[in-house]
């Protein structure tokens, strides 16, 4: 992991990035955040972590409690608006900032939300489209067969489809097998999975069955919500497929236990 000459002079001024870690990565999968920092630095970015960050406000917002969600949106804007770029290792949290903050807020705050939205990117989009992360001198990472789960918010709110696949191919020589019905939701849906567990259970069982049918050893994705859901179902059904966040794979981190697997 030290193959990369990080001290090489950068051909252009460093992009200054504030990382919004997201609450799920903070709590359940810190390695996603560490991997994100590492990838951003490999791409020549200066990374900062605003220390007061917590949650983007999605749970309350999606449940329809706009009044509880708006203060969290304003907080996040205040903490991140001075950055050149805001990067988020989650399509749904990035979608919340880019698409839903401007709907949620009014007046001056809406303007600030729009300004923040213009410089906020989901991690793989940023790495691929903006920072143009290349393999460079780094030794190739060898991955077993991978399938990629498109998270709905990332796919439909932000158009993330080609970027993660391109990065997996370019950086990891990954052999990708597509899921059947890859654009269908895995049944997570935030509070949906707990409010309507039976329907959600059917959806995640279908998603897992498609993943197993690909014969891939790893299911990668860009959103921890989906991944916790799919990993939890895989663990329940005794499937061996490993569920991992794409940031970890792009860093070549395969030694830590996959999501929901013991040490």
């Amino acid at each position, binding site marked *: 992991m030290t193959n990369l000459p990080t001290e090489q002079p950068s051909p252009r001024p460093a992009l200054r990035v504030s990382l919004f870690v997201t609450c799920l990565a903070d709590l359940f999968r810190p390695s996603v955040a560490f991997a994100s920092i590492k990838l951003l630095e490999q791409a020549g970015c200066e990374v*900062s972590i605003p220390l007061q960050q917590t949650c983007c406000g999605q749970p309350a917002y999606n449940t329809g409690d706009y009044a509880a969600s708006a203060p969290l949106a304003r907080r996040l804007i205040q903490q991140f608006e001075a950055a050149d770029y805001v990067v988020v290792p989650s399509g749904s949290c990035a979608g919340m900032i880019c698409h839903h903050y401007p709907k949620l807020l009014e007046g001056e705050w809406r303007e600030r939300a729009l300004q923040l939205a213009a410089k906020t990117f989901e991690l793989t989009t940023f790495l691929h489209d903006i920072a143009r992360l290349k393999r460079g001198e780094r030794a190739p990472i060898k991955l077993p067969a991978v399938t990629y789960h498109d998270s709905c918010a990332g796919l439909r709110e932000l158009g993330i489809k080609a970027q993660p696949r391109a990065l997996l191919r370019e950086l990891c020589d990954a052999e990708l097998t597509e899921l059947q019905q890859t654009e269908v939701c895995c049944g997570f849906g935030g509070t949906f999975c707990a409010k309507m567990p039976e*329907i959600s259970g059917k959806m995640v069982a279908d998603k897992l069955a498609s993943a197993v049918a690909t014969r891939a050893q790893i299911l990668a994705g860009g959103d921890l919500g989906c991944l916790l859901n799919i990993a939890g179902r895989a663990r*329940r059904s005794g499937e061996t497929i490993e569920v991992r966040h794409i940031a970890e794979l792009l860093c070549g981190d395969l030694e830590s236990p996959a999501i929901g697997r013991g040490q």
Partner: protein
Amino acid sequence: MKQTSNTFLDNAHAALQDPAKVQRRDLLALFAPLIRSAAVDSFGHFDELRQQVKQVKQHTLDHLDHYLEKFEREALRNGNHLHYAGDGDQLNSIVLEICQRHSARRVVKGKSMVTEETGLNDFLKRAGLRVMETDLGEYIIQQAGETPSHIVGPALHKSAAEVRELFLAKHDLGERELAETTDMVAEARLVLREHFLKADVGIIGANALIAQNGYSMLVTNEGNGDLCANLPNVLIICTTIDRVVPRARDATAMLRLLVRSATGQPQTCYTSFYSGPRREHDIDGPLETHIVLLDNRRSEILASDYREMLQCIRCGACLNHCPIYAGVGGHAYGWVYPGPMGSILTPLLTSLEQSNALPNACTSCGRCAEVCPADIPLPDLLRDLRHDETRQKLSSSRWRTGLRLHAWLARQPTLYRAFTSLGIFTLHLLGRRKGGFTRLPLAAGWTSQRDFPAPEGRTFMQQYAAIQREEKAREHKAAQAAAQSQSAEQAGPEPVVAGEPRSRRAPPAAAKPAAAARAKPRRAPRGQAPTERIEPSLGTDWSDDKPGGQGHE
């Protein structure tokens, strides 16, 4: 029809118990999107047309009074009778009154979701009329005593074998095989033909009302609409005020979107424009025609934040693309309109109290909005309904309080860190060996269907703070050492010690933290054993506890 929307979860549970039906719905969910996308892709400029039709629809809704008046004038000029019905009961009474005036005994109907909304069939039957549905799907479910499960394919939930059993039981036609679906269709055709010929009144719906010429447009694949409209002496068109469009070409533009979105066909087998009663030299057609325009809260929707819902052209694409509709089927929604459009229309046309489960039957996956030919932001409207639900305190108080508490806690970073650090580390300790939990307090919904993955270790913020503290301590030490050696230099010439060049010295204490961070080797601090193997650098220290600046120029 009796509404059971609020037992959605029980209905869904029941629907998931029949593996054959589940498989049927899975197949529909697999193939319907493929058929639609093939039709849309080969059309080529679907999105442009979608924007154009949306603009027309929005314009019409903005001036609905104008276009309704225009339609009324033109329709009357064509010899139609026009009725306005405020609610379903009024529509039913108007229709019954027309039937009674003509001493009608037999009614044939072409598929009309509006009359499902008003419960017209039962109403007419109670008044002694014989009502026969003539759309094959509607006919099947009428014979089975069921309700539509889909707004375009009302009997999609029934297999060919079930239809065969039904026809054998209901049609008194002696011994026969009915082995092929074509045999069943032929039999239905035979039976229905009799009804068409004997009917006194025909009732159909409308896909569009054209203000320009007072015509109404109807599409069918079976031609049953035309038989209902032309064979009986009296025709009644039951539709709603939001079907009106300004011009004939708007109706046909909408048609291009509608049919591709609904069935993936470029065009339906029959597209009919009804002008009015038989004219002097016409060889056929009804002698008297009525158009009943139902409001049923649509003008309330028009005046509300849900106006965009009136752009809906009833294609059913949102149903076909909704994973929840695919999972549980249309009947679980407990009223006339299922799927995403139904989860919005049902609360608006009935009441949110009776149906607040429906707007929650959504993962906000956005697939419905992606395919909606009217470009309605369905997930946004569903979330807005959840907003209404929260404000009216219709949702469970446990959820409301829990999410409020979470949102409050997330605004107190210190408390949030303390709380999450403790909780997460406890979960980590309990679950690290196995990797997850099969049961967990407060997460019964989650763990009923899947395990709960254990957290990886300490929270990121905890680990990050520890790394940062370590860095600061080292910087401090280095600065102290530098200061000491400086004072030593001042005291006298420094002895040159072999093996310890000056360049090794730490940067002077005055150096900017950012520069210091950059100059440091990018390795994890030694002496610390972080639980994860990824060795992060700290990144630049322009954290937000410096008000305003964040280290930017």
